[in-house]
């Protein structure tokens, strides 16, 4: 029988079973879509900030930045006049928001228009003297704004904008737009101001954020002559630094996507295999009537290639749409946690398409080839019997259990090995998921057997009994569908339990840290906007206030790597706060006052610093040694935090800027009354003055937002798994229709048959949930100890949340019920009348 005849035969099958063909295509498309979406999000986020750096650098070959977060304005002259420097431009680079543009944050660049013209063309070229005068000396600071942003918020030249500087309202005037031909493909919102106005507006008087340079000599000459704490970088090394900051985040996103991909591949395999197995008897018949094995397998490979192509094509579109609609959520998370990124669009590239399509093809091919090969080598006389595949599945289940045990042990070993490389942590997660997937056939067989007996004996439920036994009877189908669903659910349970444990740990940490009655902690804290001096003076001397705790965090570079320097008021916090000391104790505060440092466990992990070690911090006075006297639990930054006393900071850095404060009120003083006074005096702070509880809720709100994208992933995984259940049920329906008819002959009415079918779906869902609960808990352990700790360096106390399990079970049962409705509808229409006979 020719290859084309066989191929035609195969496609006739899909024509007759159009719903199954649709499910197959959906399965492949979802699998491919997951890969494409995550890859697109990762690449777009990276490309966005990479192009931002390139674009904002303009013609600069290098930049001077500070290891301790600021450059003294006085240092500019010596750098500018260095013989190797052809051009130099001082830059204030600060993120901010305005009332008018709402949540669209703006990168404010303060430049000297004369010096900066060698680098960029932000201000209108050839502007007349009047425009330049306004730009430089308008009583209300003048700004040029990205045209796109202005259009979006219907802003026009001459409008006044209200900048929220440390939460306090400051006016600026829009004097023109930055031409799109200048800002090009840059997706970030830019506001360009005169450098002096920007320094004044954002509390950076006397300091610079960066000096951009064009160097025509040997950069090493300049590097060697730079003042203490300043370093020469280029765009590539800045990109590398920012890349390294995102490494852990992206690693985790990739890990989540790989787990989702695992589910996707499982599903594709499930569908492909099902499409072959359901034709097993036909194939054996074809072999019987003379077709050869090679043509048979060839026809299936051709079929899977076409199916893979169609599924991949749809998958690419689906993945693109998922990425398109979720990119804002991810870029907002990155902006919240790391640094500002504005991903304007997602660009589908050939390598991304190729990776997605490859996944679709490989999984489809494996799914088709393995079973078709199995059928091709099975003697037709055996293959022609439907039961033979179940016999084979039944005899294989013991071996699969053993194989699962091997993977379980290997996974445990990999979890241990994760201390050497995070790669082993991910391998462990995959191994564990695979182990539980392999446990499924054996345990499902045992479970359904006993469940059937239990349902009959305890509830006298014959339909429940038959449903359980039907699931067992079609083990070759049901175990794969249940395993795919269990893998999807275990991922959901594992990640949700990790998030819950993480959230509980963060809440405990916040409870210990946030002991003040009122907090003034503007959203701009992360952008280093200092609070006005008069605010602290006023409330520091207010008789109602017992203590005013000042709080600042700055970026510093330790050995070229970014970390956070937190400045604490030991005097207050030692008595008021409850730090979670992993090493060290309450006594350590005394050492902090003397010039020691606390470090967060993530910093200790990243830099390999232990209690008792000494670390060198960059200060304007050079590298200063700080003995490490405590390691604290701190979730504020995965870059790691060094905590020192404010008096020490003031002495060494010559700086006393404060980004947020906490007020500890005297007993009996009304929190609301003090809050009202603050708001009345400092316009704009009504957005940021919060109580202890509100502050805690705000931080936890950010936490929840950070993990919000996992919901999409969960949804897709669940959908993927449930499609598997629906297919398996259709399979049972198709293959066991004779059994169903016999039940009709024996007197089961259509209602009972329908109930039986729905119970089948629910039993599959229930068992998938049970397997997933165990696997999910194991995954949580791996994620927390072997992945999260190795990625971020912070420990999390694992806490089980009954709600996670209840929610997963409810969703699964509801979805399995829904998945079984159509097959049930079909089943109830089956008439027993077409005789059960073989004439």
């Amino acid at each position, binding site marked *: 029988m020719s290859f084309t005849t066989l191929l035609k035969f195969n496609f006739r099958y899909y024509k007759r079973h159009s719903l199954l063909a649709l499910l197959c295509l959906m399965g492949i498309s979802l699998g491919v879509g997951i890969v494409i979406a995550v890859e697109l999000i990762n690449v777009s986020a990276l490309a966005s900030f990479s192009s931002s750096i390139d674009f904002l650098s303009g013609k600069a070959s290098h930049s001077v930045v500070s290891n301790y977060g600021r450059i003294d304005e006085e240092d500019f002259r010596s750098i500018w006049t260095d013989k190797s420097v052809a051009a130099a431009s001082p830059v204030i680079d600060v993120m901010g928001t305005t009332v008018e543009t709402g949540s669209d944050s703006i990168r404010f660049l303060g430049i000297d228009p004369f010096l900066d013209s060698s680098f960029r063309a932000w201000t209108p070229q050839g502007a007349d003297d009047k425009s330049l005068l306004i730009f430089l000396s308008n009583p209300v600071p003048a700004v040029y704004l990205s045209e796109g942003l202005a259009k979006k918020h219907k802003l026009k030249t001459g409008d006044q904008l209200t900048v929220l500087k440390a939460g306090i309202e400051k006016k600026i005037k829009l004097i023109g737009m930055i031409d799109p031909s200048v800002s090009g493909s840059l997706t970030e919102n830019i506001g360009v101001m005169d450098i002096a106005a920007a320094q004044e507006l954002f509390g950076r008087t006397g300091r610079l954020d960066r000096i951009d340079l064009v160097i025509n000599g040997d950069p090493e000459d300049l590097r060697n002559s730079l003042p203490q704490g300043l370093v020469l970088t280029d765009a590539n090394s800045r990109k590398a630094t920012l890349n390294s900051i995102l490494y852990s985040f992206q690693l985790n996103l990739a890990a989540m996507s790989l787990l989702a991909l695992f589910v996707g591949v499982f599903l594709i395999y499930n569908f492909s295999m099902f499409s072959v197995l359901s034709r097993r008897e036909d194939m054996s018949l074809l072999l019987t009537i003379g077709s050869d094995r090679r043509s048979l397998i060839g026809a299936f490979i051709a079929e899977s290639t076409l199916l893979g192509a169609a599924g991949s094509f749809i998958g690419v579109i689906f993945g693109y749409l998922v990425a398109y609609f979720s990119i804002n959520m991810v870029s907002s998370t990155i902006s919240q946690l790391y640094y500002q990124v504005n991903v304007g669009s997602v660009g589908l590239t050939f390598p991304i398409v190729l990776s997605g399509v490859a996944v679709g093809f490989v999984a489809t091919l494996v799914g088709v080839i393995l079973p078709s090969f199995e059928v091709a080598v099975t003697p037709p006389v055996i293959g022609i019997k439907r*039961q033979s595949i*179940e*016999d084979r599945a039944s005899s294989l289940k013991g071996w699969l259990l053993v194989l699962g045990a091997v993977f379980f042990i290997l996974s445990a070993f990999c979890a241990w090995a994760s201390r050497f490389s995070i790669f082993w942590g991910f391998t462990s997660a995959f191994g564990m998921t695979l182990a539980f997937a392999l446990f499924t056939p054996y345990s499902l067989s045992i479970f359904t057997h006993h469940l059937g007996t239990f349902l*009959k004996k305890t509830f006298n439920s*014959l339909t429940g*009994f038959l449903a359980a*036994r*039907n699931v*067992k*009877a079609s083990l070759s189908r049901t175990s794969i569908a249940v395993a795919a669903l269990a893998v999807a659910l275990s991922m959901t349970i594992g990640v949700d339990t990790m998030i819950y444990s993480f959230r509980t740990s963060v809440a405990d940490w916040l409870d210990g840290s946030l002991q003040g009655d009122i907090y003034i902690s503007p959203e701009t804290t992360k952008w280093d906007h200092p609070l006005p001096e008069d605010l602290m003076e006023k409330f520091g001397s207010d008789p109602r206030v017992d203590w005013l705790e000042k709080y600042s965090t700055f970026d510093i570079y330790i050995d070229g790597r970014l970390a956070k320097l937190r400045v604490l008021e030991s005097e207050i916090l030692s008595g008021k706060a409850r730090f979670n000391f992993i090493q060290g104790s309450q006594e350590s505060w005394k050492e902090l006052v003397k010039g020691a440092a606390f470090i967060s466990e993530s910093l200790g992990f990243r830099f390999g610093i232990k209690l008792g070690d000494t670390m060198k911090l960059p200060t304007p006075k050079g590298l200063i040694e700080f003995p490490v006297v405590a390691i604290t639990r701190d979730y504020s930054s995965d870059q790691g935090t060094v905590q020192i006393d404010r008096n020490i900071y003031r002495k060494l850095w010559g700086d006393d800027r404060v980004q947020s404060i906490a007020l500890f009120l005297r007993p009996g003083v009304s929190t609301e009354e003090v809050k009202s006074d603050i708001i009345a005096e400092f316009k704009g702070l009504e957005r940021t003055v919060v109580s202890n509880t509100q502050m805690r809720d705000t931080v936890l709100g950010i936490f929840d937002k950070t993990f919000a994208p996992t919901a999409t992933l969960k949804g897709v995984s669940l959908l993927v798994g449930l499609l598997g259940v629906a297919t398996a049920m259709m399979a049972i329906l198709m293959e066991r229709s*004779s*059994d169903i008819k*016999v039940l*009709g*002959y*024996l*007197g*089961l*009415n*259509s*209602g*009972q048959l329908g109930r039986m079918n729905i119970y089948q779906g629910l039993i599959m869902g229930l068992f998938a949930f049970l397997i997933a609960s165990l696997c999910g808990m194991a995954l949580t352990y791996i994620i927390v100890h072997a992945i999260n700790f190795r990625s971020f360096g912070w420990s999390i106390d694992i806490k089980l949340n009954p709600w996670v399990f209840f929610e997963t079970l409810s969703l699964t049962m509801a979805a399995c019920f829904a998945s079984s409705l159509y097959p049930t509808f079909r089943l109830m229409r089956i*008439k*027993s*009348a077409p*005789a*059960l*006979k*073989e*004439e």
Partner: protein
Amino acid sequence: MTELIRLENVSKCYSSGPNCDVFPLFSVNLELDQGSRMILLGKSGSGKSTFLNIVGGVDTPTSGRVFFNGTELTALSQADLANYRRKEVGFIFQSFNLFPTLTVGENVMLPLELVGTPNKEKAIELLDAVGLPDAWQKFPELLSGGEQQRVAIARALVKTPKLILADEPTGNLDQDTGNTILKLIDNVCSLNNATLIMVTHSQDALWIAPRHYRLRSGRLELETVIN
């Protein structure tokens, strides 16, 4: 003798359009008493199985009426027909149609479970009667074709049905095993005074019933009566 089955002008037509294309049954009339037996002969596709399905309440005629013990089956709802099959009819199939995941015991018990009277002793007794006293815990796949058909017979008779419908019960068996099965059916029908309608192609099976009918072009014709 009490009348058990009566068919009045029963016709069945299969059509792809408004008009009947095929008439497997055309104006069939028949009366069968309790405990009586009949053989139904006919070519493939002549309507034998349709006849069994209509009498068994699995299918409904296009026209005409069917009575069982005075009750008009053609007037019953689907639920009532299911109840009728559950209580009154025992089906025996050519390909046994046992449930592979149920043990022999569970297969035999199934009709009793459906009626709501799970009587294990009776099922054991019947398995004993069909010559399979030790098969209770076994799965059907471990039995020979003949043994599987015995289990199927036990399943059909365990609820003591008034009517047994057998569709080529020996069609998949060798001659010797077929004869054994026929004797078994003969015995249990006699024991329970059950009415038997059996479709067969086998000349060796004709002895089991005195009246042989043949379906020809939809018409039911009495072919032979053996005294």
